[in-house]
């Protein structure tokens, strides 16, 4: 087994470019699609009423309540022009007590802007309604009352002191890292077929080497090189780009390890169906990009509700890995909490590996 590891590593050492490019690729993809360095989205607001300036000022104050969005007063013509050209995704037209959303494309940001704006308007409408019935000073009274209410509601994460903040950027970081992992591990598993076709496998069969040693050499190499990629990417994001990936890095790596094992087994299963490395190169890259789509890895958790898709997603390790990682990163879950996901991935791994090796062996006799 050690000699197989050594020979595979020697080959990659000679041509490290592909693996390095893939690692760099997963970092770049996560930054690009994850919306870059963390910053609040700026949204333009404007009014076209008679007393526009007054209305704009009122809503600017009411809308800028947290740091996920910054609402800025803009010229109406300018906003309409930018929307038309697609320069910005969304702008808000405010009226005395109503609003309209101007949308150019349906990006995930649009719906969160809508939710935020809608909440502010609802709240304001309630306060105005009370005000008109009771009298003048309701607003101040309400505010001072709320500050010292009999029931203090404090939202908390499971173990942390902060409220868990779901963040699509962090999710995408993992989605892209795992997407690239699936390619790396697949290409390494394909070395089995490559060496079979070349006749190198037969040389090993004739030698005193054991079959288990042969398989474990190839599979362990695939595992190690994939874990290297994942760990490098995680370290870059956590310590260089300062992404918030939670405090339990070791638990994330454990989840990634189970994921890698599960996926290597699936790659082995696919190997069982192909005769040449070229066939693998034709099938594998066309199947792999579908897995994150079906598993909802690019969308907010819970977006996919179709039970058929959910069932298919459960057959692959990715859905389980994402679920476990999201709960670790956003909700501070511990080993106990993600145990089921880990076991699922290991189960998928053991079953697919058994089938895969069986098929490969049947092929060759």
């Amino acid at each position: 087994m050690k000699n197989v590891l050594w020979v595979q590593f020697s080959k990659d050492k000679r041509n490290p470019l592909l693996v390095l490019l893939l690692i760099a690729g997963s970092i770049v993809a996560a930054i690009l699609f994850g919306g870059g360095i963390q910053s609040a989205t700026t949204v333009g607001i404007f009014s076209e009423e008679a007393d526009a300036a007054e209305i704009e000022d009122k809503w600017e104050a009411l809308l800028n309540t947290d740091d996920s969005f910054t609402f800025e007063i803009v010229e109406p013509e300018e906003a309409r022009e930018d929307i038309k050209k697609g320069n910005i995704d969304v702008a808000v037209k405010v009226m005395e007590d109503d609003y309209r959303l101007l949308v150019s494309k349906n990006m995930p940001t649009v719906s969160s802007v809508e939710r935020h704006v809608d909440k502010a308007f609802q709240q304001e409408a309630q306060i105005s309604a009370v005000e008109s019935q009771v009298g003048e000073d309701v607003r101040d009274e309400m505010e001072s009352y709320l500050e010292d209410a009999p029931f203090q509601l404090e939202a908390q994460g499971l173990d942390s002191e902060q409220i868990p903040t779901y963040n699509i950027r962090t999710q995408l970081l993992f989605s892209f890292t795992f997407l690239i992992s699936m390619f790396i591990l697949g290409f390494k598993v394909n070395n089995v077929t490559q060496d079979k076709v070349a006749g190198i496998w037969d040389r090993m069969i004739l030698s005193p080497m054991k079959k288990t040693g042969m398989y474990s050499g190839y599979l362990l190499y695939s595992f190690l090189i994939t874990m290297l990629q994942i760990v490098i990417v995680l370290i870059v994001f956590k310590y260089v780009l300062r992404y918030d990936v939670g405090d339990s890095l070791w638990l994330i790596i454990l989840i990634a390890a189970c994921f890698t094992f599960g996926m290597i087994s699936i790659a082995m299963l696919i190997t069982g169906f192909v005769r040449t490395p070229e066939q693998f190169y034709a099938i594998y890259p066309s199947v792999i990009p579908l897995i994150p789509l079906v598993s909802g890895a690019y969308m907010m958790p819970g977006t996919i509700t179709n039970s058929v898709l959910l069932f298919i997603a459960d057959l692959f390790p990715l859905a389980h890995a994402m679920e476990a990682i999201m709960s670790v990163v956003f909700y501070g879950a511990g080993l106990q909490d993600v145990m089921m996901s880990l076991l699922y991935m290991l189960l998928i791994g053991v079953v697919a590996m058994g089938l895969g090796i069986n098929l490969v062996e049947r092929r060759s006799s």
Partner: protein
Amino acid sequence: MLETINLSKSFKGKKVVQDLNLYLADGESVGLLGPNGAGKSTTISMISTLIKPTSGRITMNGVNAIAKPGEIRSVSGVVPQELALYQELSAYENLKFFGSIYKLRGKELEKAIQQALEFVGLDDRKKDLVKTYSGGMKRRLNIAAALLHRPKILILDEPTVGIDPQSRNHILEAVRALNQTDGTTILYTSHYMEEVEQLCDRLYIMDHGKVIAAGTKDELLSILSTENKIKVELNKLDEAFVEQVKTIEGVHKTEVTELQLKIIAAKGSNLISKLVHLTEQHQIQLLHFQTETPSLEDVFLHLTGRTLRD
């Protein structure tokens, strides 16, 4: 001694090797000759225990080698027809790996690598990547990889296809040296008659999955001892003429290559005068004329009606 008894192999119902009986005595050098597709590689794969026969037996010193493949594996080295090498690695790295799978370690491994490299004449290029090698050098390394564990039986499957004459001679000399100096038993597969003729004590001629003749070179040539081979060169050749030559009494085989006609006919038949007569009839000029004793190539032509290169 290694022996096969009625060895057969079918792929999806198609018989590729049929009732093959063959033996290899210790220290012998045996050739397996046949055109492409004759079933040589399939035979080699069965003997080296890589594939299981559909029927028949293989024994090694009397032990059933199909049930106990270790009997053959532990004493044999196999040079496959394809280049089973890592092209992205150097010759040294390749041999290091192929030695390590035979559990060679440390000094012992280094020595085996060095000997194998010197033996095939690649010592000075050992640090170069295999993909930069010529076809002949790759073939030589392919052989070296099978020698590291000093096998008692060396099985070579067409080790010289598509290479330059120099590498070819090097390989033939090396194999001969292994057989004569070290006493290694050789099973050598080829579709080149000359190689097998030079190298082997005994040979089997295979065609369409069957052994059609076997024996020493002399024994095989004696098949044609009652035959003569005549080569004629003509200024033109037509179908009608060749057809009439075939009807001459005693003519067994004819083979046309451009303006040359090869005829195998029974000795003592009055062939030459009849041939001259025919050329006059067809107004063909006879440019050159030669009789030869038949070669193994002719034996093959005689037995199959085809040449080895078909």
